[in-house]
């Protein structure tokens, strides 16, 4: 089984190159940030596959990645508001 999981992990990792291309070409900042989110979700998947192929102790890394993946997105949306201290929902309504 572990050979199959390593194969899946390799293919999944390769597919993330598409996200790298999206970060490179944009065009908007939101596009780049979304591609980083995709690498986060994909990275969680790769960690889980590595854990299944090798040692389940790795799974804590997947939990931490999944927990913190959205934090960069929150910091991004905050940074887009005036002085980096507002709420995107407020500013879109007002």
């Amino acid at each position, binding site marked *: 089984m572990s050979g199959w999981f*390593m194969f899946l*992990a390799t293919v999944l990792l390769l597919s993330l*190159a598409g996200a790298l291309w999206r970060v490179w070409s944009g065009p908007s900042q939101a596009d780049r940030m979304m591609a980083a989110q995709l*690498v986060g979700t994909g*990275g969680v998947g790769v960690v889980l596959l590595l854990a299944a192929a090798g040692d389940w102790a*790795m799974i804590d890394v997947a939990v*931490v990645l999944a927990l913190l993946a*959205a934090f*960069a997105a929150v910091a991004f949306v905050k940074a887009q508001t005036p002085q*980096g201290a507002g709420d995107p929902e407020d500013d879109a309504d007002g």
Partner: protein
Amino acid sequence: MTLAFDLVLCAMIVGAAICAAVAGTIFAAAVFFIVYGIFVSLAWLRLDAFDVALAEAAMGAGLTGILLLRALGRMPASEDRPGPALAPALAGAGLALALGWAFLALPESAGLGPVVRNAAPGAGAENPVTAVLLAFRAWDTLLETIVLLAALLGVWALSRDEAWGLPPGLPQRVRPDGVLAGFGRILPPIGAVVGVYLVWAGTSRPGGAFQGGTVLAAVALLVSMAGLAQAPRVTSGALRLVLVAGPLVFLGMAFIGAVLSLWQPGAAFLALPEAHAKSLILGIELMLTLSIAVTLAALVAGPPEDRA
């Protein structure tokens, strides 16, 4: 199959690093750096360094991203054109070649792994990395926590006179029933449990004060970004006490060993008595976690600012 995985992983890491170096806008470079951090933590898993992978995941995916994106939000969108490329490229290529040659020329060695693994249970931690951090090389860790404090002093020293005494960073304004506020309510309890679990597990499994502290710091920053709680003022006595509590407890334990050594052979500065080593290490780790979490959160939040 594992070799194919490692080759693909290295290609992705190097690709992300090159893109971060040459990307057209600084925002793209920062996003490439976040992606790069995720790939690097996969590389640590491949090296069986689970503790390092945890630290890199928490720093790379969590705190570094927040730090960079917040800084970019404060900057004008101007880009500075890079200088001539020839000399830097030669310097970088030369250094990479020299390092690569040195790696291949290194003599084989079994390292210190077996020595540490044999001695770790007696030192109070089954996780050999925790044993190295808090027992065998405790001196480094003690000084490191003081380096963190020094960096925070440096950041606070950069605040303008009018803003001194305010909380770190700007006051946050968030729609009370919005998605951001809701997200800020759901995630922190889970994050706090994960952070404390990492510290608790750190004596016997991957994890420890630094990884747990980083997760808790990220959670604290999320609570502040979601506007749910105001960070304490930089002049607050309670905040300052928490900042120094970890290093103080660590130092206190170290001096108890030094005093004991006057009439007890085997005791020494920074040497924990073997009978209580496990509970002492856990106690030191808990205090260190608290201090590390608050210090890192304050570092990333930046100097106190007013709206002017």
